[in-house]
């Protein structure tokens, strides 16, 4: 397809859409779908027909609108009004009052801090386009950044732009993306590969899933730009097998893009060719580690290997390979569309841009948010998140999943960026944020994560395989009320050993939940050991006591 042609597709589609006076967008991302949003969409379509408004009213599906706790969500005329908790029965009223004041009983104010404090870059198209429609994406200048890069920029210039933007890896490590790209570009190899890491294994994180379900073309475009920059002609998306909807949408998007020659041979008539294939993960958390992920794509057990050599030099089938996270790729095309400077002006000195977080746990507004780096945790939890449910007291917020830590109230005013989070013994991680209230026992939480790491340990290196099992055993003794102070000392020592001697990130960070809870909630550990009581009243000790009484 020539650029004129795809500008034209976008233009005609825009015109076609503008013909409609009213647009009704129903969220069809997984959370809303599981609350029957497909039914809501069907009945809205029926109602539009019934009331003879086909000419002026268009019903379509759209990606995640963010406020997952109150689904199914329906957005009217590009978020002029947002309806929450819509059922199929509300359809006739919605269509009837489409030109009038929003229906009070369903409406959520767009001025809520939940919406007002967000800054959407990676999620720019979420809630604005139909994820199943390439035309929708083109109408929002989709694939223009790719075409622009292919025709007006050399690969080096593309990389320079990414370096200038200050984008850092959003998978958790925070490695500068530009630097990674230029290492792969410089590496010598007959072939090169680009891999998108969508193996979102952290329990409590659903950012990647939402992005893939809501804006699959955005990720594909980012990958193609990366492919051009580093000189690769094949890309893989390694996605969790547990995300059937995301897989389906991504497959459809790849087909649409191939048909319009936005992927495949000689993209848009340029000499650049790039194919993207999907590889399904099979439920191994360790495959989020890049060398394990490569082994898994090669059809092997997902065990990591020591680095260096890094995948940038010796990756998939021995060729230089670029691996980035979904959110990193989602940020690529906005950087070219809006300029590197726009992006680097947001955020803090060392952490530029925005970060997508999945808010969950004991918080009112669970859902997907994108906020500028440097915002305080307090703002996220109490302002955007709306505070704790049922009037309970805040206890801790857990970031970074099984590799992160629990952050207590006194650190809530800390800015959210890579460095500050590491300083308090947690990490940015991929962006899961679980809020816990006073009824969560911190030792039980640490034990939960340790059980996770113990089961997910691939078994290759001893510190992780044996260490996590031993740490789990010690934590169980504490929650069962059988531990002594010596056990606590042993646990702390063991944490340090596992942290410093494990082969890959899984083992090295597996002690973080324990270390951070010991650091901030030592009293609670001591209450379990010395007084044999659980202050939160939710772990095994508390249950046993109840049983005895």
């Amino acid at each position, binding site marked *: 397809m020539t650029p004129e042609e795809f500008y034209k597709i976008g233009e005609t589609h825009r015109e076609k859409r503008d013909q409609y006076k009213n647009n009704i967008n129903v969220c069809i991302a997984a959370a809303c779908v599981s609350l029957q949003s497909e039914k809501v969409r069907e009945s809205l379509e029926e109602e539009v027909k019934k009331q003879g408004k086909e000419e002026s009213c268009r019903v379509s599906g759209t990606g995640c609108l963010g406020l997952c706790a109150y689904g199914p969500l329906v957005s009217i005329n590009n978020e002029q009004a947002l309806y929450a908790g819509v059922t199929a029965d509300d359809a006739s009223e919605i269509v009837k009052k489409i030109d009038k004041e929003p229906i009070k009983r369903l409406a959520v104010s767009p001025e809520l801090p939940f919406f007002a404090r967000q800054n959407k870059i990676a999620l720019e198209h979420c809630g604005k386009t139909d994820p199943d429609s390439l035309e929708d994406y083109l109408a929002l200048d989709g694939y223009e950044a790719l075409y622009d890069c292919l025709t007006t920029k050399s690969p080096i210039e593309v990389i320079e732009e990414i370096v200038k933007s200050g984008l850092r890896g959003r998978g958790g490590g925070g490695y500068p993306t530009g630097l990674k790209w230029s290492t792969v570009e410089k590496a010598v190899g007959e072939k090169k590969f680009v891999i998108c890491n969508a193996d979102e294994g952290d329990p409590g994180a*659903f950012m990647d899933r939402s992005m893939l379900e809501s804006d699959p073309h955005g990720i594909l475009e980012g990958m193609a730009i990366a492919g051009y920059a580093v000189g690769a002609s094949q890309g893989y998306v390694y996605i969790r097998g547990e995300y059937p909807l995301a897989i389906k949408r991504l497959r459809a998007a790849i087909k649409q893009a191939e048909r319009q020659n936005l992927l495949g041979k000689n993209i848009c008539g340029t000499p650049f060719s790039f194919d993207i294939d999907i590889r399904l993960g099979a439920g191994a958390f360790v495959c989020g580690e890049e060398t394990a992920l490569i082994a898994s794509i090669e*059809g092997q057990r997902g065990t990591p290997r020591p680095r260096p050599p890094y995948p940038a030099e010796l990756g998939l089938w021995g060729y230089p390979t670029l691996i980035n996270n979904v959110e990193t790729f989602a940020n690529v095309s906005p950087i070219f569309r809006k300029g590197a400077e726009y992006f680097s002006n947001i955020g803090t000195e060392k952490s530029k841009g925005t970060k997508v977080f999945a808010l969950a746990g004991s918080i009112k507004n669970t859902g997907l948010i994108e906020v500028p780096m440097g915002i305080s945790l307090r703002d996220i939890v109490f302002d955007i998140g709306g505070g704790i449910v049922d009037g309970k007291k805040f206890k801790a917020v857990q970031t970074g999943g099984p590799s992160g830590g629990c952050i207590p109230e006194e650190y809530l005013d800390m800015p959210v960026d890579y460095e500050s989070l590491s300083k308090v013994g947690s990490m940015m991680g991929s962006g899961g944020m679980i809020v816990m209230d006073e009824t969560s026992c911190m030792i039980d939480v640490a034990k939960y*994560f340790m059980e996770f790491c113990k089961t997910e340990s691939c078994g290759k290196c001893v510190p992780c395989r044996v260490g996590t099992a031993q740490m789990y055993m010690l934590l169980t003794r504490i929650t069962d009320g059988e531990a002594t102070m010596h056990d606590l000392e042993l646990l702390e020592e063991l944490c340090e050993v596992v942290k410093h001697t494990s082969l890959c990130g899984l083992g090295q960070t597996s002690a973080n939940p324990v270390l951070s809870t010991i650091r901030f909630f030592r009293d609670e550990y001591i209450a379990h050991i010395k007084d044999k009581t659980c202050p939160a009243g939710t772990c095994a000790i508390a249950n046993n006591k109840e049983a005895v009484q």
Partner: protein
Amino acid sequence: MEQTAKKKAEAPKDKRQKLVDATMRRHGHSSYALIETLHSVQEAYGYLDDDNLRYVAQALRVPLSKVYGVATFYHFFTLKPQGDHTCVVCTGTACYIKGVPAIFSAIKKKFSIDPGETTENEKLSVLTARCIGSCGLAPAVVLDGEIAGKVTPDDVVERIGRLIQNDT
């Protein structure tokens, strides 16, 4: 062992077998396609049975030990047949702190099975998932492929009961 695999290859192929073959063909019968192929086997048959593991090993020219290694390494693959209905309980962090243990004990009380087990009459399998990514709806379960969010232990037991009852 080779004989069974051969027999399988020669026997008239049912639709499910064709799906598996198509996946292997698409990847040029390369050993790299092992995981993709196991995915198709599980999709077609519901689980990985011994015959199919042998068949795949032979067709992709991968040692059976390695096929078995891969099949057991990844949690997504199951080597046991499932019951008629499945209830996958999400054990992600958000679901956990909102009361997954209570769901398990309610299921155990009613159907006498632990997570990972199937009832004796093969009606119900209870499985766990690390995180199904529906944290906004915690606690969540997946009943026969459909996600049910914000459930209580009684809810789950009742819904499962309804599923089983619909059969009879």
